[in-house]
């Protein structure tokens, strides 16, 4: 033993079937990524003409600009809102508001986009309100404005959920101390909150920036034309419509470079993002008692709550009202079944692969191979770096040798959505396995509990809940993902996501409303059922 806290194991003990499978899967994923680019560049379109550098530059510029603005606005809104939520630890509806902040994780992106359109679109609430007030003004949603509104709608709750635990991590004694020393609101901001934000914001900013940088559904539906095209959408168009594989690969390589840079920055920021149950973390703050502070806090909270709830309210109201204009029952039912089937298959694939990779990573960590463990975790997060469009195309080229998008459509969607959901599965399982290993490894080693026996009696009962969460999350992500189905889908394989996208594109908003409502209800029910059924009851 070179270091304490590590278990001496015979060399062969580390090479169980599970671990080998984990290594194998990671190798396949990594190999895939390399092969894809080679294939695409080799297959590549018209080699004579020079690549359209001006176009690439414009797309890259817009992608960076909208991601930057989205991040800045999300954070500028999240800071006062989180501070208000931290200071006002008890008010009716606080719990509900925090639950609402968790919704965008489960809500399919396209559903949220519909909500934004229903509020800010040409025939949305805002236009209606302007009309009622006699103002001659039409909101112009499509373009940069629409992209920013949708991105803030999705990322403001995320930022709050990431920041609130940081506020809650300030020890209760510090607030007592602040009260005892007579620190005012401004002193507390300067002396406690600014240092806290300085420590937390960079990591959160990079995450939001990367999410907005690789945005697909939002830019595709709300971008509205070549002026507002992001990298991911450009890749999609190059691959699916122009069959320009070389341009697709070039754009994708650009994206990999920026994402890798972003990932490196996140890693440098060195923060484990905790997406815990923020509602439980409450510290009593004495500075929130002054009436001025209460007034300001509740003003901010109400503003934020209105911004976050309006799209959902609009979605429900218009969805219910639009049921009569819904697509035919038969096509809705078929789309629902396809959504459920693809979601579950994608989720199961992602969870199984994720479990094996996480297990192998944990073995490496336990035996002190930090570098290898990091590499394994990174490979599993491939979907965060490499455009899913390119991965999808790679799956295709590898499987069929051609780009006949119809032949393996279902398998393509399932595999691709699994790759996309894998980072989230790992995000849930890696920390859970780390805790489990710290708790049980020594005891299991002492008792000689290994392999299947260990899984049945030790790992499954204790890891059941995180596994259920991972499965529920990845299934819902796979179900709501627009990228995979937009790339592989065809008239015979239309799930709710694609149906909704089509209705949005054709401005059939009443029909879209009911589809969106059904998709949201389905996603929530799906998530809830999987978590309950697979997760079982809480262990104490």
């Amino acid at each position, binding site marked *: 033993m070179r270091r304490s806290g590590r278990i001496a194991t015979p060399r062969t003990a580390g090479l169980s079937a599970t671990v080998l499978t984990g290594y194998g899967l990671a190798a396949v994923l990594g190999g895939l990524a390399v092969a894809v680019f080679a294939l695409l560049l080799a297959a590549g379109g018209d080699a004579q003409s020079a690549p359209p550098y001006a176009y690439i530059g414009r797309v890259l510029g817009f992608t960076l600009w909208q991601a930057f603005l989205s991040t800045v606005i999300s954070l500028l809104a999240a800071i006062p809102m989180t501070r208000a939520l931290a200071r006002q630890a008890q008010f009716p509806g606080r719990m509900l508001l925090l639950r609402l902040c968790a919704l965008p994780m489960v809500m399919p992106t396209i559903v949220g986009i519909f909500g934004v359109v229903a509020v800010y679109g040409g025939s949305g609430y805002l236009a209606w309100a302007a009309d009622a007030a006699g103002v001659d003004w039409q909101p112009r949603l499509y373009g940069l404005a629409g992209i920013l509104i949708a991105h803030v709608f999705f990322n403001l709750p995320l930022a709050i959920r990431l920041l609130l635990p940081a506020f809650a991590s300030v020890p209760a*004694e*510090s607030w*007592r*101390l602040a*009260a*005892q020393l*007579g620190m005012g609101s401004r002193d507390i901001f300067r002396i406690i909150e600014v240092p806290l934000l300085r420590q937390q914001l960079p990591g959160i900013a990079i995450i939001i920036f990367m999410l907005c940088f690789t945005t697909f559904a939002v830019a595709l539906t709300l971008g509205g034309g070549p002026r507002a095209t992001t990298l991911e959408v450009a890749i999609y168009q190059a691959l699916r419509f122009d069959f320009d594989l070389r341009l697709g690969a070039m754009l994708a390589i650009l994206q990999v470079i920026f994402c890798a840079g972003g990932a490196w920055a996140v890693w440098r920021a060195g923060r484990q993002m905790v997406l815990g149950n923020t509602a439980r973390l409450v510290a009593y703050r004495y500075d929130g008692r002054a009436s001025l502070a209460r007034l300001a806090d509740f003003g901010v909270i109400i503003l934020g709550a209105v911004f976050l709830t309006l799209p959902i309210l609009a979605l429900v109201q218009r969805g219910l009202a639009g049921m009569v204009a819904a697509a035919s029952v038969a096509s809705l039912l078929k789309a629902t079944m396809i959504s459920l089937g693809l979601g579950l298959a994608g989720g199961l694939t992602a969870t199984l692969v994720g479990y094996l990779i996480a297990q192998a990573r944990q073995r490496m960590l336990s035996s002190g191979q930090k570098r290898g463990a990091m590499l394994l975790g990174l490979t599993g997060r491939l979907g965060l770096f490499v455009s899913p469009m390119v991965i999808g195309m790679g799956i295709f080229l590898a499987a069929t040798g051609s780009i006949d998008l119809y032949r393996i459509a279902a398998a393509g969607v399932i595999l691709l959505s699994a790759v996309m959901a894998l980072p989230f599965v790992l995000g849930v399982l890696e920390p859970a396995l780390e805790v489990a290993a710290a708790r049980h490894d020594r005891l299991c080693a002492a008792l000689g509990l290994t392999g299947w026996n260990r899984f049945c009696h030790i790992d499954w009962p204790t890891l059941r809940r995180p596994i259920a969460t991972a499965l529920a999350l990845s299934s819902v992500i796979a179900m709501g993902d627009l990228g995979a189905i937009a790339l592989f889908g065809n008239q015979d394989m239309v799930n709710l996501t694609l149906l909704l996208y089509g209705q949005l594109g054709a401005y059939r908003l009443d029909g879209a409303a009911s589809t969106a409502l059904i998709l949201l209800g389905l996603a929530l029910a799906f998530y809830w059922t999987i978590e309950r059924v697979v997760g079982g009851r809480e262990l104490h």
Partner: protein
Amino acid sequence: MSYIEIAGLQFTYEDLVMRFDLTVNEGEVMAIIGPSGAGKSTLLALIGGFEAAQAGSIMVGGEDITDLAPDARPVTTLFQDHNLFAHLSVAQNVGLGLHPGLRLSTEDRAAVAWALEQVGLTGFEERLPGQLSGGERQRVAIARCILRKRPVLMLDEAFAALGPALRREMLQLVLGLKDRNGLTVLMVTHDPADAAFAADHTSFIADGKVVMSGATATVLASTHVAIRDYLGT
């Protein structure tokens, strides 16, 4: 009339309804002992103003402080942990006792250095709390208490995490401070030896009530069944 008079002070935590009556003389050390969950720390939090009492009153030196904000009370509390802000230097942490916004004049800085000297940490100004031992961190917190110049000092198991010898040393430091500045000290402790060493009087608290309060030797030797059960003698 005693210096601190607590009468019918009521507070409910979950199912436990607490009701405290206690008097403390000026310039003495009063130890508060009792089983965990009995309300010892809650009593200090009520006196410190961190929890609001539902009924009853707290008088200090003839003044009713029941409804005052924490910083307006003539008391200062030393917690077991997190007495310092980890990202502020020792000098800044001590300086907070002079100005809660850390706008310190040259005289203030001299006062900080003087307070650090009092606790034996001369020259520690620029260090961060993370670079100090547990005992040194509490010394820094005590230096801040000195600058705050409040007549009542409350120790909420402040030295519980320290070893026996160090704990004795810290208590001695507090006793010296008390004598020089005429402080009244309330200390919650789980070690009867601390009470026997430092306290003139001791109160035994159980189930949210002061069961017995008197000379330390008397309380520790009492035949009261709850006290015997707690001490295990």
